């Protein structure tokens, strides 16, 4: 473990080595194109994210953080190496199985909220359940509970365009929680929000983490990165620093 300047940030905590890994990358490489236009976005990347940890991933553009997030989110596959979600080796899964894995084990929060415009709040929250092979029976109740949890209990039938950015992002977070995922992946989740709303969202992440959720947050804002328990800096597709 590298701990460059970790003492400077009170949020940094010891890693939870006793917990099982929820996402494990084993010498993962991602290569785009071939020949002269060959770009290596990730190179021999080996890392473990453990249950209950709250990570921020930072790096300049082109450092591979988006590629890493796509692979962690199972919407992209490594060119080489293995990626495990809990005990499942994703290389063994076909497209359908991978989709099922996403709908069960992963929660996404995007920069631009990415709610589905023709669906109302409660429907947006339940979308991941629709795609599970055996959706839980109490999906609706869970969705209502989560809407309450993120403070939108009174707006269940509103459409996304009737909500503010912060509210939309809250819906997106509720959606990311509906399947009780192993891993919540947030991609610049506060990037489109004003600082006050951004702070609210970050506080929500803190709370979720306190409840035991594993969160990986990609950001380029230093103060957002500093809030997380751990910070992973990338450079040129490799690990630069780990705090």
């Amino acid at each position, binding site marked *: 473990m590298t701990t460059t300047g970790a003492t400077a940030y009170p949020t940094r905590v010891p890693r939870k080595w006793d917990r099982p890994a929820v996402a494990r990358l084993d010498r993962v490489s991602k290569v785009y194109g071939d020949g002269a236009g060959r770009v290596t976005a990730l190179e021999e990347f080996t890392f473990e994210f453990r249950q209950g940890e709250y990570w921020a991933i930072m790096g300049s553009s082109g450092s591979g953080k988006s590629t890493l997030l796509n692979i962690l989110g199972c*919407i*992209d596959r490594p060119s080489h190496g293995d990626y495990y979600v809990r005990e499942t080796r994703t290389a063994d899964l076909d497209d*359908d199985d991978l989709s099922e894995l996403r709908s*069960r084990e992963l929660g996404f929060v*995007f920069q631009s909220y990415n709610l589905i*415009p023709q*669906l109302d709040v409660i429907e947006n929250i339940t979308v991941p359940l*629709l*795609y599970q092979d055996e959706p839980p029976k109490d999906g609706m109740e869970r969705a209502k509970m989560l809407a309450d949890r993120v403070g939108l209990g009174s707006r269940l039938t509103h459409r996304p365009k009737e909500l503010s950015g912060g509210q939309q992002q809250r819906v997106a977070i509720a959606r990311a929680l509906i399947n009780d995922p192993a891993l919540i992946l947030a991609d610049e989740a506060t990037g489109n929000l004003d600082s006050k709303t951004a702070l609210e969202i970050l506080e929500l992440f803190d709370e979720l983490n306190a409840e035991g959720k594993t969160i990986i947050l990609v950001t380029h804002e230093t103060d957002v990165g500093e809030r997380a328990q751990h910070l992973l800096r990338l450079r040129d597709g490799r690990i630069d620093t780990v705090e």
Partner: protein
Amino acid sequence: MLLPTLSRAVKLGIRSLMLHRLRSLLTTLGVLFGTSSVIAMLAIGEGASAEAYEQIKQLGSQNVILRSIKPPEMTNQASTSSSTVVVYGLTRSDERRIEETFPAIDTFVPVREISQDVRNLDRVASPRILATAPNYLDVTGRMLVEGRFFDAEDDRTVANVCVLGSEVARHLFPAERPLGREVRIGSSFFTVIGVLAPRVRLSDDPAKAGTEITDEVFVPITTGRKYFGELTVKNRAGSREMEQVELHELILAVDDADAVPFVASAARRLLALNHKKRDYEVVVPLELLARAEETKRIFNIVLSSIAGISLLVGGIGIMNVMLATVTERTREIGIRRALGAKRRHIVLQFLVECVVLSVVGGAMGVGLGLVIPIAVEYWADMRTIVTPLAPILAFTISAGIGVVFGIYPAWRAATMDPVEALRHE
């Protein structure tokens, strides 16, 4: 499990389509017109062929009808020299020759046409006056509304009796029963002994075919010859036109349906041998029936091609719109894929939208398609028949069109790379 999934997909599909109301409506219209044109065309085709069948059946399928027609070159000649007598048509020697040639023929019914006015007091009608044999009724299958047709006795005694067509009867006797009353034909008086039911005319000449004939008066052929001779004089706007025709029509009733084509072709050859000009026609209901079958077949092919093309255009419309929609909703597809949608979920989603469009269009098209034939009947005075199969067929095809033309856009949506799709603006 499947049913709720599907009903949810349909609800969602409708909602997505409602995001672009005008676009969805226009797409639906394409299917609507396709479907309704299928139904309407089938109805019109069915009606036309049913009409033809009925006309043919009225002529009697075992008859061969020889008819005198005025050759076109004679019409010109008559107009230049106004007082010559034009001689054409079938002759009694034709009849005799045919009679000798074909023992298979049961009955010969000669028909002469007389050009005279028919009067009751001051009411005048100018119907076709047909002088014919008593068995005319049996051979042509025409029906009497009341009274009787003249019999062999009337024929032998050259009786002054006549049978009126229903229209003539109505015209001459608007307020009373014509039976037993007298009408004046030319300068002689005839007792009305029967009234005929209307029927439809059939001819080789499409312009003449299909008109209803009810303005006819029948007299015994002997009586006709006695009073009116064989010279027909038509007074027309100052000029007189004289024609001499021995027989206007000769109906050959063949006792065996299999012999009809043979009799027909032999009659044609026999007449061709003895007539220099083409002043006759041979109408064979059985041949017409076969021709009507063929026409119906071609008609159906043409109509269904046209209808098929309009449905195809509707389908292309759907595909076009769905391709645009898929591109437009690339991001939504990316989101759904990221949230766990499998390819089949995306296919189902877009396919359902296509099917909703085409089914709604198809249903409205069935509605319109059932109205069009009524309108056609009302305004164009054409007969139409909507068979129960037509709407079912049209609806099924239109729904199928939605599936067929939806598959490609849906497949395109499903095979998008989620990463790319999420990046799409």
